[in-house]
């Protein structure tokens, strides 16, 4: 989530790489199976959920980072980043929902759900951390 390379961050990066690889396989695999075999009933529901599982794994990896990081300042930054992402996601989803309630925007979300917005929020949260707490925009770090 930032420049830190603690053991917890290394584990987090490894987990993210695994889950994102699984996500790509699950996404294209499920799309292909739906087009090739048109699954029905319970199988269709199970297959549709498969791409969601690696994304849930990413949520788990982020939460594990918050638990496993031993550097309290870095952990505080990661918590801020996650809370920022949660607020960002809830705010946009809520606004979008009310625009839909009054039929000002079309139904659906174009395939971009809460997870996508939360990940965008993590990115914006990292920038927010750098601007408000980080060294990048300050010339005060001593070596």
């Amino acid at each position, binding site marked *: 989530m930032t420049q830190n390379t603690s053991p917890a961050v290394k584990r987090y990066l490894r987990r993210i790489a695994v889950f994102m690889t699984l996500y790509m396989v699950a996404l294209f695999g499920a799309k292909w199976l739906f087009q090739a075999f048109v699954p029905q009933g319970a199988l269709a529901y199970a297959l549709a959920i498969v791409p969601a599982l690696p994304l849930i794994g990413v949520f788990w990896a982020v939460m594990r980072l918050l638990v496993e990081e031993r550097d309290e300042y870095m952990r505080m930054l990661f918590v801020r980043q996650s809370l920022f992402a949660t607020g960002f996601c809830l705010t946009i989803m809520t606004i979008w929902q009310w625009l839909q309630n009054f039929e000002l925007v079309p139904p659906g979300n174009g395939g971009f759900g809460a997870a996508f917005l939360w990940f965008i929020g993590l990115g914006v949260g990292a920038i927010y951390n750098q601007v408000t707490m980080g060294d990048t925009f300050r010339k*005060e770090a*001593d*070596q």
Partner: protein
Amino acid sequence: MKNRLKVLRAERDWSQQDLGERLGVSRQSVNAIEKGRYDPSLPLAFSISEVFGLPIEEIFSRD
């Protein structure tokens, strides 16, 4: 809180990285504490106290 981390570090010719390694935290953590942007927990304050061989109140003080 105010602190004397920068002075104590300079007296020992330690970089922020050096102090971070002694404390088991990142350089960013040392920098944030030194600049008063982050107040350490009591366990970390005790670790800082042990590393410098000084009581906590000789390192940290109220604003």
